């Protein structure tokens, strides 16, 4: 490399690091308001790089990065000191996010399976194949998407299916990671997504991580809790006391003030036990509860998410079954620890933030435990002040922005609308200018049902024939994949997969479409704290790779050309028509014209109208261009500026709380401004260890790899740091089984088996009788072993609890 260029990069690196050091110790600079202000301090020093902002491509924290581009290639990534979320810092994955673009095996051409081979075909041929299959049986087509879809991609897919085909068989992979969080919020507040924000992590005295490992899964966010003195958080100089509740000791446990080991499903019992103590000892927040809460429980017969009202007396009576001794037995938490936690919640002088992610969501009682933790905060009055918040985290960059807000779940419509609600359908048909009755009132298949129907022969009732997968890798990430995503499937089924790299799913596809990724396209994400973020395309995708949103529009337009009525609006116009400044239609379905206009902006402005329907107001697109994200609801002040919201439902913070109320749950399911505190009984996990399968299995993520590893495995530094999957075994179990670290063993359940090397005293340590395996390794699919039991309301499967055994490989036995 040119020495001058190298010197420039070193200067830029030092400037970025210095900026990060200073930004954590001084007051934060204001948000940049112009493109120039967004540049790193040394960008004008001569290195020739162009710097642009973008959110990181990985998790739901939504750190912002500065992306350095030179001659059409991303060559540098820096933390963004103007970003509230990350304050100039990145985790090891974010640091390498630019490298995910440049793996040598990027998909660059559409590929059609012919026998055992893939042959290259043109995009025109690919679009024709898809459109013809859909036209032949539109009701037997399904679309499987992702929390990595940009907002425009998810919105286009949603409109194509529900508004165009009148088919609700669209669901995202976020069903697998946060559906129980959604049902928990809906059951409690009547509306999805957190009341608080990440600011609560700065403001709390105590941070409780419920079955959550943010030190590995959300490292920059977690650093805000444990590195507070260096953050310069005013008035909160002490680091938060972190209490880690979990079924396995993790990196979070090592960094926490205290680790409390739970039995599987112990979280349900623990929440019930704390609530029982608060009430039986009259230490709950009576004033808060009387002013702002109702009580609710499931119906005895045919329970629903809405449940039925119960009195406070009945709620208290039901809790009496959860005595400290019984809770200790169910949860594994000693009575004295249980009392300490109850003391903590009884103390209104401390501020408590609870965070959780997969541990509480991937749970056959996911809706129950989410609702119980919300209820615990409400019952104790730890709600509605900075630092007093129950907040779920997400694992994908736009699980909230795209899946939950755009509504790409099988039962939903944009703006919190529901397909089963006649009034909601009419609203959407009006906003989309569609004929009345176009939207199908019957919810589509959720993820597990969708794949089960696809794997089942048509002759046996499998009524999904064509499945289009975008931006996700279900052949690795679904539970119990031997059943839901078998490598051999019925002959009449057709799998289309759009992705950036070969994956376990592209391997078994019939048609593979090469996709653009991250800064190769325009995009918007919505992170876990209601923050909507925007970026512009910076470089071209490789070869003939194209945007997922374009694919959807091109397929829709081919159907339009074929005369498919659903692709026309009331005026006979194409449902994705985008007009230029002169009112002329831009042919965005032709790739060469796709970037003649900003399709993202056009779709976002259309979608934004829906956001007003449920107090999730979004600002105009241009406001996001200059900001590092804005947290909805975003409303316009009298001076014309746009204001975000930190605390929902709180007077003085939330623009929709009117009058003299301190709090107003204005989407209350009881329509009285109150939140619901739920009672749910403890239930045992769907499968428990027994003589035949004596160990618990939990699965999860690691710091260096992201989800199925399809991107991070292309980054040498990340791959080298964590190259292969493994099974963590407790030392006492390892001794009993005569196992040593590095030894290959078979991890086997009633559903399947996988061979993994043992790791004793590794990254984490499961308790005796329990093992853990990450799911990033494509060559060792732990999801052959997991169970597809699921929560009855959220339909989210439980990846954290099933029964397995460990044995040695038998002679002649092979594993894929």
């Amino acid at each position, binding site marked *: 490399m040119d020495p001058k260029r190298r010197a420039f990069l070193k200067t830029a*690196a030092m400037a970025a690091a210095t900026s990060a050091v200073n930004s954590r110790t001084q007051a934060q600079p204001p948000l940049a308001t112009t493109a120039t202000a967004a540049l790193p301090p040394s960008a004008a020093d001569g290195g020739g790089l162009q710097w642009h902002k973008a959110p990181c491509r990985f998790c739901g924290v939504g750190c912002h990065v500065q992306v350095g581009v030179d001659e059409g290639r991303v060559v540098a*990534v820096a933390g963004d000191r103007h970003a509230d979320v990350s304050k100039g810092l990145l985790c090891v994955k974010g640091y390498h996010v630019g490298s995910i673009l440049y793996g040598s095996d*990027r998909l660059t051409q559409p590929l059609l399976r012919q026998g055992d081979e893939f042959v290259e075909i043109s995009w025109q041929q690919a679009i024709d194949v898809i459109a013809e299959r859909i036209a032949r049986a539109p009701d037997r087509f399904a679309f499987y998407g992702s929390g990595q879809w940009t907002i425009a991609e998810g919105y286009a897919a949603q409109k194509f299916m529900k508004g165009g085909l009148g088919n609700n068989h669209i669901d995202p992979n976020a069903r697998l990671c946060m559906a129980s969080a959604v049902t928990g919020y809906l059951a409690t507040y009547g509306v999805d997504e957190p009341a608080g924000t990440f600011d609560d992590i700065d403001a709390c005295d105590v941070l409780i991580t419920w079955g959550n490992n943010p030190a590995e899964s959300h490292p920059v966010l977690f650093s805000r809790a444990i590195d507070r003195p260096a953050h310069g958080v005013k008035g909160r100089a002490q680091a938060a006391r972190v209490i880690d509740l979990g079924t396995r000791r993790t990196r979070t446990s090592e960094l926490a003030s205290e680790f409390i080991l739970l039995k599987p499903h112990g979280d349900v019992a623990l929440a019930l036990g704390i609530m029982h103590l608060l009430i039986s000892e009259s230490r709950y927040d009576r004033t808060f509860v009387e002013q702002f809460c109702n009580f609710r429980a499931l119906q005895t017969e045919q329970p629903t998410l809405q449940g039925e009202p119960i009195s406070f007396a009945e709620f208290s009576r039901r809790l009496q079954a959860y005595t400290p001794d019984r809770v200790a037995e169910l949860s594994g938490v000693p009575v004295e620890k249980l009392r300490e936690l109850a003391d903590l919640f009884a103390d209104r002088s401390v501020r408590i933030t609870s965070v959780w992610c997969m541990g509480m969501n991937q749970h056959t009682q996911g809706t129950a435990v989410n609702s119980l933790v919300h209820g615990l905060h409400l019952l104790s009055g730890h709600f509605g002040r900075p630092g007093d918040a129950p907040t779920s985290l997400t694992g994908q960059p736009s699980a909230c922005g795209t899946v939950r807000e755009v509504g790409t779940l099988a039962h939903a419509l944009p703006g919190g609308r529901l397909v089963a609600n006649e009034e909601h359908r009419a609203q959407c048909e009006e906003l989309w200018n569609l004929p009345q009755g176009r939207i199908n009132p019957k919810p589509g298949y959720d993820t597990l049902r969708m794949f089960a129907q696809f794997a089942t022969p048509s002759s046996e009732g499998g009524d999904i024939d064509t499945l289009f997968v975008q931006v996700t890798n279900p052949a690795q990430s679904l539970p119990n994949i031997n059943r839901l995503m078998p490598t051999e499937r019925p002959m009449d089924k057709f799998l289309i997969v759009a992705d950036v790299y070969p994956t376990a799913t592209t391997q078994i596809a019939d048609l593979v479409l090469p996709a653009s990724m991250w800064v190769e396209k325009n995009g918007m994400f919505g992170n876990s704290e209601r923050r909507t973020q925007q970026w512009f395309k910076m470089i071209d995708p490789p070869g003939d790779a194209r945007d997922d949103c374009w694919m959807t529009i091109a397929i829709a337009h081919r159907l339009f050309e074929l005369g498919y009525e659903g692709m026309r609006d009331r005026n006979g116009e194409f449902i994705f028509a985008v007009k230029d400044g002169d009112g002329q239609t831009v042919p965005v379905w032709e790739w060469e014209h796709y970037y003649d206009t900003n399709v993202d902006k056009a779709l976002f402005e259309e979608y934004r109208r829906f956001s007003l329907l449920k107090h999730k107001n979004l600002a105009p697109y241009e406001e996001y261009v200059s900001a590092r994200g804005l947290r909805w609801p975003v409303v316009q002040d009298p001076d014309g500026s746009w204001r975000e919201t930190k605390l929902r439902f709180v007077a003085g913070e939330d623009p929709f709380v009117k009058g003299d109320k301190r709090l107003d749950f204005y989407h209350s399911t009881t329509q009285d401004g109150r939140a619901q505190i739920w009672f749910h009984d403890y239930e045992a996990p769907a499968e428990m260890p027994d003589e035949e399968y004596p160990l618990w299995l939990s699965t999860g993520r690691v710091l260096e790899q992201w989800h199925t590893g399809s991107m991070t495995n292309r980054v040498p530094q990340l*791959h080298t740091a964590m190259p*292969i999957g493994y099974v963590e075994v407790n030392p006492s179990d390892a001794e009993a089984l005569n196992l040593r670290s590095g030894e290959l063993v078979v991890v086997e359940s009633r559903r399947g088996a996988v061979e993994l090397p043992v790791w004793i005293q590794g990254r984490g340590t499961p308790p005796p009788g329990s093992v853990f395996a990450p799911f990033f390794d494509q*060559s060792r699919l732990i999801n052959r072993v997991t169970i597809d039991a699921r929560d009855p309301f959220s339909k989210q499967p439980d990846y954290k609890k099933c029964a397995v055994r460990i044995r040695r490989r038998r002679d002649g036995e092979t594993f894929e």
Partner: protein
Amino acid sequence: MPVSGWVVTLSDRPASRAAAIRWIDQEPRLERGVISGQRMAVVADTTHAAADRELWSQLESLPGVVMIEVAFIGFEDDDDSDDTAAPTAISLHRPADRLLQTEQTESASHGP
């Protein structure tokens, strides 16, 4: 050729902290920048990605270093970019096939 900008959080134990700073000063591939409170800016300049990672691990293992976070990475002309290269899209072989070939040596120091 990675050039990285790191934020190193130092221990509050004076002896460990001083030892970590001495180690950084003696390491020619590291350049020390501003120190503010427990945090210090550092630039790493290494010849290839594996060396960058190794240097990170060495620094992270020092008793006087609590944590390292990243503020900048330049990866222009990274000569390790094909380390995990999978076969071409046409063959659609699994990238993990390559991982299996290298796991024995890599896992010895980084994994089980």
